[in-house]
């Protein structure tokens, strides 16, 4: 029978590597790499975003020397200060945690407000927001948002 180059074209292309025999090693390697990168991204990207958005924040923890509850008007007043991100009291309403952007507001701006309300306030601690959140997580402390 006369030679017909088309008859075994498929086989010839397989031998020459023109026609793929299923998924090639390169394709599988790319797919596996993408799955690994996607998995790592799911874990690391939210952490990176969280870090970027909270790295300038500090927490100041205050307590009234009278050990009474914090007046709502003071909390509202603190929340209106530019650079204050959040205020939280503990479950007994005795400690007030103020989260603020240290680039935009100084601690003295907050303490001045206590003076305006004639409150004797003790600063218990001033700590990086992320560090404080980690400490809370470790201690499992329960906080309430006013």
């Amino acid at each position, binding site marked *: 029978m006369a030679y*017909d180059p088309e008859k075994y074209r498929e086989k*010839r292309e*397989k031998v*020459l590597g023109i026609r793929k*025999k299923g998924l090639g090693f390169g394709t599988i390697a790319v797919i596996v790499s993408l799955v690994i990168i996607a998995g790592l991204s799911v874990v690391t990207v939210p952490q990176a975003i969280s870090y970027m958005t909270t790295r300038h924040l500090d927490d100041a923890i205050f307590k009234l020397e009278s050990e009474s509850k914090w007046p709502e008007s003071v909390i509202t007043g603190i929340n209106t200060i530019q650079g204050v991100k959040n205020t939280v009291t503990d479950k007994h309403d005795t400690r007030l945690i103020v989260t603020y952007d240290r680039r935009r507001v100084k601690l003295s701006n907050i303490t001045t407000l206590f003076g305006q309300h004639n409150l004797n306030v003790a600063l218990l601690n001033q700590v990086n927001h992320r560090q404080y959140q980690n400490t809370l997580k470790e201690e499992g402390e329960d906080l309430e948002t006013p």
Partner: protein
Amino acid sequence: MTQINHLIEIHGLKKKYQSGDISVDAIKQMDFFIDDEEFIAIMGQSGSGKSTLLSIMGALNHPTQGKILVDSLDLYSLSTEQRADFRSEYIGFIFQSFQLIPYLTVLENVKLPMAVTGRTKKIKNQMALEVIDRVGLGAKAHRLPDQLSGGEQERVAVARAIVNKPPIILADEPTGNLDSKTAEEIMLLLQSLNKDGHTVIVVTHNQDVKTYATRSIKVQDGECFA
């Protein structure tokens, strides 16, 4: 890739075996072609170079000089991996001594050439059972080789050779270990495979094989005479 006019073309083929200071010209000079769907009997005495020729055609043995083109593929210009793919895609081998794995069943032996084809287990089983039926051993698919006669073992070897649907079947003395009646059955089987579209090349010193072939090539002292 070189443009050719025949399925198999052999140009200026030479093969020299070197053993220490002694060199033997197994193939001195060969030029011939084989067309698609031919049944070729390569005839020759022991030591004439016919088995060397078959192994070179099967991409198993580098020639010292010359070219062998199969379906435009220059076999010994291909990479080792491409040559392995060539054997898998194009060639079915049948050996004189059957070369069956004794602890594997007929079905498992026949499935062996499909091990690296990427086919699913189900398809492999289906294809293997089809060719086992084709060689008339459907009822003995789960037997071990030593539970079969010589002729039946040769049939398993044939089934294994055709399971990947290769266009070319190379058989080295396929009837060498068989009685004349069984040898005739095997030759008729090869003839029917040829009629199904396989190019069959049989290397033998048995003159009777010529009667089944469409053409014979005589090999003598490392040279061929078509």
